[in-house]
Structure formats: C-alpha cells, structure tokens
C-alpha cells in the first residue's frame, strides 16, 4: 500500500497557478525530498498534503484513505516547520503534549509518550524550559519531538534546518536520517539545499514552477539529469556547460561554438535516440568527472587548456579556465601543484557527461 498518493492535484491563488495536475506517490517508509528553488511550489505542496491549504482540484490519499477534505489533525501527519513554531508561552513539555491534550489522551499515556520522544531526541533535561531559553538546535529537536509524540505514519518537514548554522545543520541532518532509520516512517522533506536532498533522500523530486521535473533516486538524478535545469541544480560546484554542435555520425563528434579548433568525440555517450541531423546542444560535464594530468592520457576525450584561477578548498582545488571562450571548471586533488598560467591536460569519459538540446534543454 502506498503511504501517500496525490492524484491530479491543482492549486491556484486567484489567477496564479501554483500547482498543476500534480501526481505523486510515496511508498511506506520512504524518505522523499522535494527540492527546488524558492517559489517552485514545494512548500505549497507540503502544506496541501498537511491540509493547511485547500486544494482546487484532485485528491490526496494517506495510507489508502482519502483525506482530501480532512482537517490537518485528522490526517495522521506530524509537521516540522522552518521557524520551529514552538508555542512561546508553553514549556517544552507543554509544547510536546499540546496535541495529545487536544486529542484527549489520558495523562499517563501523555507522560509516557513525552518521555519516550524526549529520550529519542535527548531533550529530557529541557522539558521544563521555555522555548526562549533553548538554542536553535534544541528548538528544532523539540519541534521534531512534537511530531514524534503524535505517533503518526507520515512526517512532513518544511525546510527544518534552514534557520540553523552550518555546523548544527550537518549534525541535525544526520540525526534526522538516524531517526528515519529507527522509526522507518514515511517522511517528506522540503528543502532548497541539494546537499540535504542528496544525503537524506531515498528519492528526490525536483520541482520548478509547480511541476515535478524529475523524480528519481539521488544517484540517478546526479548522473542522468533529465534536463539542463536539474543538471544545474544538483552538484556543487555546478556542471560545466559547453555550447556547440553535435554531428549525426557514429563518433558523435562535438564541435564547440566560438571556433575552438579541436573536435571532441563522444562516441560512447548513450543517447536516448540516435542523432539524425546536426544539432545545437549543451554538453554538460561535472567538474568532479574531469581528470587532470597523467590520468587524462587514458581518457576517451582529452584536450589542453590554460589555467586561469586556482581556488584551493582544502581537500580539493577548484581550477577555473576557458575553452574556446567558454567557462570551464574542474576539480583536482588538494595536493596537486597547479598554478594560474599553467597549461594543463584534462580529459573526461563521455559516459559521465550529459547532452541537452539547446532549445528544449531536455536530455538527449
């Protein structure tokens, strides 16, 4: 049985269409991340699932039950918000037990559940404090605890880590993952942070303008982005895009725009459909898939370029250069000696590249 199923969901605010004919299903115990830039409709979708927004069209099923017209509290969901949304006048214990009191659950049971949740989240010592006396990380734990005590099937996270500093974010990210492994609940997690998406998700849905562009496992999205937008969104530093023409022959020869004299043979690239005519394309190569120096000798595609800027980042070094006037970046090991002005031999395997149509920007 599917944990969550969304059928033909549409939502508009007045004339503005926010979500359009959206279909989505989530397996039991799955960790689905909704990823996209701000304004893509990911938080709106989450609010629709939670029942906090009335939808205009479509149906929502949770655990096989049609909850389209249910109140948020009747849907069997727990939700964690970006700003924590703790009730400031209540103690941590009051915050955790608020929903249980509303559901008229007995006092013993409330105490038991609060104790259990606070043990899991290691906030037992904080139960009598007010939210104002907690740090950001502690507040977010309490917010997670509030969803936890309700003993629900589905957890909804609305950018829960965005208000935390970088170090805490990493810590809590791992904790959320641990929590998921322990509870094995269905979790839907909204974020604009691709690292969170990649690290947490079983599957990622990349959204843009109210549409799901790609719904796949993180690896698939990373290696085989369906279009240029997805390719740009995932990966840091971002993918290199080279504008050029591809010829319809066996060797898939790629000629860079701007009069670079060398042609690249992308013969082992797997096209969805064979190229029949000469085509304007974007050739996308991730900086981390480019090798440098001796290793480049064995690559199917290799060429020389001049190093412009070197950015050491500790473990790695990001190297900026240009080919045929187009920006081209690659990553080398942090121990490599490389200076601006050097000439470098680099290469890559076309199997790890992506080719997109110049017009439609879809993967070819």
């Amino acid at each position, binding site marked *: 049985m599917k944990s969550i199923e969304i059928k033909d969901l549409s939502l508009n605010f007045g004339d503005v269409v926010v979500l359009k004919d959206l279909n989505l299903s989530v397996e039991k115990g799955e960790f689905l991340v909704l990823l996209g830039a701000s304004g893509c409709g990911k938080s709106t979708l989450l*609010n629709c699932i*939670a*029942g*906090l927004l009335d939808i205009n069209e479509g149906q929502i099923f949770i655990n096989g039950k049609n909850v389209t017209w249910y*109140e*948020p*509290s009747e849907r069997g*969901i*727990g*939700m964690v*918000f*970006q*700003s*924590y*949304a*703790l*009730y*400031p*006048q209540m103690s941590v214990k009051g915050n955790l037990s*608020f*929903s249980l009191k*509303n*559901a008229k659950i007995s006092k013993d049971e409330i105490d038991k559940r609060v104790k259990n949740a606070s043990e899991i989240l290691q906030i037992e010592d904080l139960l009598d404090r*007010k*939210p*104002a006396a907690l740090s950001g990380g502690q507040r977010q734990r309490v917010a997670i605890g*509030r969803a936890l005590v*309700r003993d629900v099937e589905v957890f909804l996270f*609305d950018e829960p880590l965005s*208000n935390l500093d970088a170090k805490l974010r990493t810590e809590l990210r791992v904790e959320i993952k641990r929590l998921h492994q322990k509870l094995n609940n269905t979790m839907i997690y909204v974020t604009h942070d691709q690292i969170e998406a990649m690290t947490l998700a079983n599957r990622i849905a990349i959204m843009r303008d109210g549409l799901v562009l790609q719904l796949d496992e993180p690896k698939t999205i990373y290696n085989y982005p369906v279009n240029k937008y997805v390719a740009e969104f995932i990966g840091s530093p971002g993918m290199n895009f080279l504008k050029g023409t591809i010829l319809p022959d066996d060797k898939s020869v790629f000629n860079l725009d701007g009069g670079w004299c060398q042609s690249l043979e992308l013969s082992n690239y797997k096209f969805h459909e064979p190229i029949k005519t000469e085509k304007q394309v974007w050739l996308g190569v991730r900086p981390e898939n480019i090798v440098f120096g001796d290793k480049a000798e064995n690559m199917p595609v290799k060429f020389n370029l001049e190093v412009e800027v070197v950015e050491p980042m500790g473990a790695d070094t990001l190297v900026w250069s240009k080919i045929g006037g187009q920006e081209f970046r690659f990553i080398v090991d942090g121990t490599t000696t490389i200076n601006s002005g050097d000439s470098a031999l680099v290469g890559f395997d076309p199997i790890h590249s992506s080719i997109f149509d110049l017009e439609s920007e879809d993967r070819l």
Partner: protein
Amino acid sequence: MANTTHSQSHESPRGPKPRKMLSRRNIILYGTLIIVGIYYLIPLYVMIVTSLKGMPEIRLGNIFSPPIEVTFEPWVKAWAQACTGLNCDGLSRGFWNSVKITIPSVFVSIAIASINGYALANWRFKGANLFFTILIFGAFIPYQIMIYPLVILLRDLGLYTKLPGLILIHTIFGMPILTLLFRNYFASIPEELFKAARVDGARFWGIYFRVMMPMSLPIFCCAMILQITGIWNDFLFGVIYTKPEYYPMTVQLNNIVNSVQGVKEYNVNMAATLLTGLVPLFVYFISGKLFVRGIAAGAVKG
C-alpha cells in the same frame, strides 16, 4: 619601536572618548526639553496648589504661590458634597457610574475586537477583506453623523438612557480601531505557529485561547489603555445617551464646574478635575510596567 612607546604614553587616546557636559549640543537639547517640560507642568502645578488652598487665600490672587495653610477640605467637598442641581453628593456618584460604564465596555469591546482581529488575520474566510474594509471605513466616519441614528436604534431596543445602552455605544465605536489593532498584531505572529497548532489538533477557539491569546499580552494591554482612558474621558456619549442619574464622572465634573449659583469655588473645581483625571493617570502608571513585562514575557526569537 616608536610605535610601542607611543601607545604606552599617557597622552595617547584610550578608553571612552571624553565628552563635555556643557557642549552647545547638550545645552540646546536639555534646555529645550526643560522649557517644554515646565510649560506642560505649570497648569498641573497651579491646579494642585489651588486645590489645597482655602477660599480666602485664593482671593489674594497669587495663583503660583504655594498654599500658606494646606487644607484637604476642597477635595472632600468635591468628592462628597459638591452640588449639581438638586443633588449634593459630589463626584462620587459620577465616579461609580463611570466605573460601571468603563469596566463592561472595555471587556466587551476588547473581547469582540480581539476575536474579530484573530478571525480576520488567521482564518481568511470568504469576504474577509470586504468586511475589513467596511470596518476600517467605519473608523473614519465622524461620530456626529451616527449620533442621531444611534439614539433611534437605542430607543427601539429599549436601551436609551440606560447604562447597557451606553456600553453598547462604546463597544460599537471602539470596534474599528481595536479590530485593526488586533488584526495587525495577530498578522505579525508567525503563520507557522498557527499552522502548527492546526496540525496539533487545536480548533478555532483552542488556537485563540491557548496559542494566540497568551502570546498577545502586550496588545491586550495596549487596547485596555486605549479603551479605559478613552471611555473614562468620554463626555459626548455620556451626555447624549444617558440621563442625569447615570451621568459619568466627566459630565458631572462639567456640571459642578459650570454651576452658576453662589461663589465660584476654584479650589473645589480644581480638586474635582484632578479626581476625575486620576483614573487615566493611574492606568498609565501601572500599565507602563505591565506593558514592558508583557512584551518581555511574550518574546521568543524566531
């Protein structure tokens, strides 16, 4: 080397920058403030001084001189004996009338306005914007336009010249501004709190009483100050919608001060005026503290 010796020498600047007390800026700033302060306090001084003098001393005509012989007679007289028409029980009756008018008016108007504001800010029901616009429009209509229609309305309801009628009037006239106040305050509370409460199973009243209200002490205080002082100081509605038996303190004060029989007792008039002003003054003093505490208690950084 030269650098280190320089930083250790006594002449080199260190610590807070010295400021001259009698700089031109300070003289102008404090001078203006003191003059304005005196300007505002002189009438109060004259009133207090006069109210503590006996009539013979007042006839000497030195209104600024402190009383030679302090007497509380005028205060007692103003409270318990001053005459308005046939009644000679002073301001005390007016005081209790004002209390009977102010307390229910303040509670009813704030209760209704806060619920209005909450519904408008959080439950965006159909027509909410239209309703809000009408209400705001109401805030800008001059009172005088509505006086006569309201007389008829109250008469038909059988409440004209009765205390509940006046309470209803105060509730109606307080509604636009109070609703605006509460709506804006509730709208400034993060929406996620409201959403969280809904997910947690609280409904309309549950969210209002257990989430919104405890967070809104400052605005309730603010509305109370506005309403208590406004209603206590009201003269017009008190005169129009009640009869002498129910006249609020302000109306009674006017009648005492303006009564034409006998000698003008300035000391009694001053004492009566000060008595009438005590309640709003008292409210300002205690609520100032409460206000600050309210803000501090409700604060949680996002």
